[in-house]
């Protein structure tokens, strides 16, 4: 499915390796870069003198660029079909398609474009296939290089994400309720169970944003059990696209950070403001919390932020953004991700 884009399976045997999503801006840019580097290298080798390198590159680019752009457009359009037929079959289809488009352009251009050195169709076709192999090989290697990171990030997530501090304090709070307010204790244990169900799950596929918001609410319910009136939360979810798919556990760690660094160190507490909204073709998540004076930004915070940044990169390549800033005594973190509706 398109939503998984460049994220490959953890499976190391290669059976789970998928084609990159050529509709993704990052994938397009990387393809352009790889092919043009190869063209430039070929130009350097083929040019009779250093002065001729530029001309050589121009002539090759004049032929190569249309092939490349046409390929990306078609691969983007046909991504669902290619994804459905499996990786080896998709490779074969792409090879045949590339030969066809190269041949077509070769025929069309031979009348007005003097091909350098009088390269034959066989030579051009071979070069074209070679470039396809290099581009696909590059994405394959990249997916393999990044996929262990998914597993590692998940383990790290479990450790960094729910601070043991939170777990034990919550259990302690529930224990204090059992005698006096058994109903509230039950509710709290249910929230805790839901939270851990998500934390312990395989979190490699995207999930509806509504689940994320619900999870963050359950987490905050547990925290307000301990912190009482010190913790105030304001949600703005009026324009939230309920069908948007997002990486799981993207919001809860940020909320946990906000409580840990923004509310707990302060006697009076403070307010956390969470915005989930549709922002043109993207989903915007923004979270602000007070920054009590003497808190030092500990390693824990950085780890959670880096962790989310890495997962955004894995899921969306260059199409997601994450930024944080301190303004007017409040810490603000903003995430923008492409709006992918469920079932798209």
């Amino acid at each position, binding site marked *: 499915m398109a939503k998984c884009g460049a994220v490959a399976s953890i499976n190391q045997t290669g059976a789970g390796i998928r084609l990159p999503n050529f509709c993704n801006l990052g994938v397009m840019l990387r393809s352009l870069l790889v092919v043009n580097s190869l063209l430039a290298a070929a130009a350097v080798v083929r040019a009779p003198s250093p002065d001729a390198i530029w001309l050589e590159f121009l002539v090759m680019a004049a032929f190569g660029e249309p092939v490349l752009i046409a390929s990306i457009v078609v691969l983007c359009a046909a991504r669902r079909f290619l994804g459905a037929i499996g990786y080896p079959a998709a490779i074969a289809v792409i090879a045949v398609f590339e030969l066809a488009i190269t041949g077509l352009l070769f025929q069309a251009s031979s009348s007005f474009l003097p091909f350098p050195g009088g390269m034959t169709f066989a030579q051009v076709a071979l070069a074209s296939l070679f470039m396809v192999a290099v581009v696909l090989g590059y994405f394959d290697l990249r997916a393999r290089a990044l996929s262990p990171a998914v597993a590692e990030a998940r383990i790290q997530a479990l450790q960094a994400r729910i*601070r043991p501090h939170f777990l034990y*304090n919550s259990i*302690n*709070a529930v224990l204090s309720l059992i005698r*006096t307010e058994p109903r509230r204790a039950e509710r709290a244990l249910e929230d805790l169970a839901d939270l851990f169900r998500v934390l312990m799950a395989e979190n490699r596929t995207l999930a509806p944003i509504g689940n994320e918001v619900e999870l963050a609410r359950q987490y905050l319910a547990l925290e307000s059990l*301990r912190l*009482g009136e010190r913790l105030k939360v304001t949600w703005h979810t009026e324009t939230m696209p309920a069908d948007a798919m997002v990486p799981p556990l993207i919001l809860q760690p940020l909320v946990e950070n906000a409580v840990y660094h923004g509310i707990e160190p302060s*006697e009076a507490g403070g307010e956390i403001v969470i915005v989930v909204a549709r922002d043109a073709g993207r989903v915007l998540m923004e979270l602000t919390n007070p920054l009590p004076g003497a808190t030092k930004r500990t390693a824990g915070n950085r780890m959670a932020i880096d962790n989310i940044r890495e997962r955004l990169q894995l899921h969306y390549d260059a199409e997601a953004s994450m930024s944080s800033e301190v303004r007017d005594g409040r810490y603000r973190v903003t995430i923008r991700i492409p709006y992918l509706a469920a079932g798209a």
Partner: protein
Amino acid sequence: MLVEKDVARILIADDEAPARARLRDLLDECRASFPLAIVDEARNGREALEVLNREKVGIVLLDIRMPEIDGMEAARHIAGMPEPPSIIFTTAFDSYAIKAFEVNAIDYLLKPIRVERLLAALNKTRAAPRPSREALDAAANQPRRHLSVHERGKIILVPLAEVLYLRAELKYVTVRTADREFLVEESLTRLEEEFSDAFVRVHRNCLVARAAISGFERNAEDSDSGWAVVVKGTGEKLPVSRRQHHVVKQFR
């Protein structure tokens, strides 16, 4: 019939209401085998010290992570009291503190606390020596935010941010703020180590707050380097020794 002095007077310090409620419940269960009275409850280290100034307390159940003044810092102030109460630390999870407690043989309880463990810790306070100020200092991983001055059996907290300079005089250190002076029983060398970020040594007997330096003056009297620090606000001049002369260049 129990004699009043056999009843352990206990203070609970924790910023979370449910955690305090839980401790109350557990202490109630201990009451049968360990006579006790809950004197008061505090929501942070500052409130705990205020209670100690007001009431006679034998045992403090002290949470480590609290706003304002945390448990570690409160304990270091408490340990300087003439007759300090016993301290039992409580914590949900704090890997650094736990390791430090183990190394320095300081007792602590992990939340959620079991009644048996609490009872054992209470009983231990009768026999075991209290953790020394040195052990607590060693266990702490960050500088205090206050200095504690003991006057007529009460603890006065002086925020470090208000201190202009610290000057060693015989066995005391004079703490100078804009308004007045205090005496504390600490070693200047130890203070220098603890507060090296905020203070700089200008003389064998003197540390000046970096933020309190308004300038330097030449040809100062009583100064072997010829230089003196001018203190912000009070305008006092503190001699800079020849050995610390590099400080002058560093700030100019």
